[in-house]
Structures are given as structure tokens and as C-alpha cells.
């Protein structure tokens, strides 16, 4: 597992595909339920035939670009899509890497084994706190079901991933959850800030302040270090872009390059991913609810390259704070959080603590 940290990230173009909005949970912070398009997602779910067209389109597009492709099937609960196994099989036969971002409710041993046989590369579950807190967010018994799901994944050999949605409500429990997932031999752990959209809008006035967030990242980093020194096998991914800011402050970043034009990393909207909703609506990022197209009516290639809204998002020099920051080429915070709070994805990330 140590080796993974030194290996370069595999470059893939990723489609996050919410194949169904149906879900047996009603999470208090869900970005889907109570969103503007939720009703359409439930009523106008793409048929199997349309889904296969989308896979064909994605395959054609990434092949033309000569770039490896990944589809992360999610929902809702993707296992509630009756044709999910057909879709996985169809995509894997085309050489597309498949991940699942799902729930534990229907993840029994037999299902996991079938997913393994179909070549699913990873399965992500959520833990948002210890039992009482997690079940409060999701549903009674969800915590135990999730642990059971992790054990089944480990048993059949599908790499298990745990994602923690971070908000003020569960700040105190992220360290215990990190310890828990290492004990459960989860392969990869990461967290994402709650984006207050959909049902999560209720938490908009209850977000971590920038300095609180910095302090929390410091604590998490210390815990990661401690666990690595104990040779824990869990890989701690760092999708949060503001890690770079903290690393720079701690002197852990390499000197910044002389090249001031290339975008080396940071938020990947408009760079290496797209999100498709259950009714075919396309977003640049699922947490940034701005429609940029519709499949299968439009091709993913045209949407990614030509959508006016997508191209506007690429005008990152318009980012009010990030464009003035020396970490502009590496970070750019989270435009989705900015959009959720202000309605403007070029507005400053409200949880970035950097003073310019």
C-alpha cells in the first residue's frame, strides 16, 4: 500500500454517472433529494437502450482522444438500477474501468461476487461519523450495514473505499472514523466537504469557518502520519484541493515551477471529468448544479469541448480570489461550495483561509 503513494496517478477521463435517483435512504445532507432536477431524475430515468448509447458515446469519445476511460456508477443507489449488471458488463468489455459509488443495503456476498467477476475496480461506501451520528444522517442500522458491506468487499477482493462527508455536525468524529476504517482494512479513505445543495441546503449557515477547517486538516494530517508510522495499509487519498495550501504553509510543497501557464492540478471541472444524471442531464461536477448538456441527445464530446457553460467554467482567470493566489495552478478550492453559498462559481471558496 505504501507503494501506491509513490506511484503516479493513473490518468483517466472519468464519467460519474448517477444511473438512478432511487434510494432507500433519505440522508439529511443528500445533494440529490430536494434538488431542482430530482423529480425529473425519478420520472425520466434513461432506458437501457439510451444508457448503452451513452456508453458507446463515452467509449468513442475517449478512444478518439486516446485517453483511458473510467465510469463511476452511482445514484441514488446504483444497485437499484435493474440493468446495472448489463451496463457494467457492456462497459468493461469495451475496456472501461468501472467503479461503484453505492450503498450497503443491497450489497450482499452474492452481489459482490458478481461485481467482482464483472471486473469492478472499486466500491465506495460512506461513513459520516460513528454509529449514532452516521445513522442520524442516513438511517437506523446504516452504520452496521456499511461495516458489513466493507467486510464483504474485502472478502471477495473488490477494493473498498470509504468517503466521509464533512460538516460541522461530524467534525469531532472524523478521526475516530479514520481509525475505524484502518482497523476494517479499508483500501482507500478520503473525505469531502459537504456542499450545501439539495437537502444539504439546511446546513448552509452551519459550515466550518476557514480557520476551523485549517485546524481540522492539521489534525487529520497528524493522524494520517501516525497511522502510516504504524504501517497501516489504508491509503489516505487527498481530493481536497486546500491540502496544497496547508502543505505550502507547512513547507511540504516543492518549489513552485517557473511555468505559470500550465494548470498542474486542483479542481478538475472542465479538465478530466463529467457527471451524468439519471435523466441524462450533464453537469461538469455533480456538486455544481449547472446544466451543460443532455445525453444521449448531445454527444459527450461536444458537451465537454463546446458547451458555452463548460467553457465559461474554464475561464478560471475570472476566479475572484484564486486567480490572485500563487497556488492557482494547483488548487482553486471548491467552486461547487462557492456556488452553493453565493450562486457564483467564480466567487471565493468560503472555507479557504488564505489571506491575499
Amino acid at each position, binding site marked *: 500500500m505504501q507503494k501506491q503513494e509513490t506511484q503516479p496517478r493513473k490518468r483517466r477521463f472519468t464519467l460519474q454517472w448517477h444511473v438512478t435517483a432511487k434510494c432507500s435512504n433519505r440522508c439529511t445532507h443528500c445533494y440529490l433529494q430536494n434538488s431542482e432536477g430530482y423529480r425529473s431524475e425519478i420520472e425520466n430515468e434513461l432506458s437501457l437502450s439510451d444508457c448503452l448509447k451513452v456508453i458507446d458515446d463515452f467509449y468513442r469519445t475517449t478512444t478518439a*482522444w486516446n485517453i483511458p476511460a473510467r465510469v463511476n456508477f452511482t445514484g441514488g443507489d446504483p444497485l437499484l438500477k435493474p440493468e446495472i449488471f448489463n451496463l457494467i458488463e457492456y462497459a468493461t468489455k469495451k475496456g472501461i474501468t468501472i467503479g461503484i459509488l453505492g450503498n450497503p443495503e443491497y450489497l450482499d456476498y452474492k452481489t459482490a461476487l458478481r461485481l467482482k467477476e464483472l471486473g469492478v475496480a472499486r466500491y465506495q461506501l460512506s461513513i459520516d461519523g460513528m454509529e449514532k451520528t452516521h445513522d442520524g444522517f442516513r438511517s437506523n442500522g446504516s452504520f452496521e450495514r456499511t461495516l458489513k458491506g466493507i467486510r464483504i468487499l474485502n472478502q471477495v477482493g473488490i477494493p473498498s473505499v470509504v468517503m466521509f462527508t464533512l460538516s460541522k455536525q461530524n467534525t469531532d468524529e472524523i478521526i475516530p472514523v479514520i481509525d475505524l476504517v484502518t482497523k476494517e482494512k479499508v483500501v482507500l479513505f478520503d473525505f469531502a466537504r459537504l456542499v450545501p445543495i439539495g437537502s444539504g441546503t439546511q446546513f448552509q449557515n452551519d459550515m466550518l469557518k476557514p480557520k476551523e477547517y485549517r485546524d481540522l486538516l492539521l489534525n487529520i494530517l497528524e493522524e494520517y502520519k501516525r497511522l502510516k508510522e504504524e504501517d497501516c495499509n489504508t491509503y489516505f487519498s487527498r481530493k481536497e484541493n486546500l491540502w496544497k495550501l496547508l502543505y505550502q504553509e507547512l513547507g511540504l510543497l516543492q518549489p513552485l515551477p517557473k511555468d505559470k*501557464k500550465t494548470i498542474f492540478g486542483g479542481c478538475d471541472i472542465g*479538465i478530466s471529468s463529467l457527471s451524468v444524471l439519471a435523466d441524462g442531464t450533464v453537469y461538469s461536477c455533480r456538486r455544481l448544479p449547472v446544466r451543460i448538456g443532455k445525453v444521449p441527445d448531445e454527444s459527450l464530446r461536444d458537451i465537454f*469541448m463546446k458547451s458555452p457553460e463548460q467553457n465559461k467554467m474554464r475561464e478560471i482567470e475570472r476566479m475572484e480570489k484564486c486567480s490572485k493566489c500563487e497556488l492557482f495552478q494547483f488548487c482553486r478550492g471548491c467552486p461547487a461550495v462557492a456556488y452553493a453559498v453565493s450562486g457564483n462559481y467564480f466567487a471565493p471558496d468560503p472555507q479557504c483561509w488564505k489571506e491575499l
Partner: protein
Amino acid sequence: METQEVVVVSRYEFWKPFLEEQSQENTENLDNLKEKSIECIAFSNYGSSCAGQCGSPCG
């Protein structure tokens, strides 16, 4: 990848290996086309009107 698409993604480090790979392939393709143009073979990649993409004098 089309020229306009290259413009859209060229500033991103993520895309550079693919663009470089494509660039090498294009060079190889152009080399092939140049060889073909000497023999006045139609440019199947570009249709009957080659518009000089291969850089050969006949374009």
C-alpha cells in the same frame, strides 16, 4: 483530436501526455503522407482535397 479541442485542453498538465502522444502520431502520419504524396497517392485521411496538411509541395 481536433485542433479546436487541442486548444481547449492544451493548458492542462493532465492532457499533455495524450497531446504529446498524438503529436508523435501526427508526425508519423505526416511522414507517411509525405511519402505517399511523392507517389501522388490520394490522401485517404483527408479526402481528395488534401489542402496541404502533409506539407508537401503539391498541396
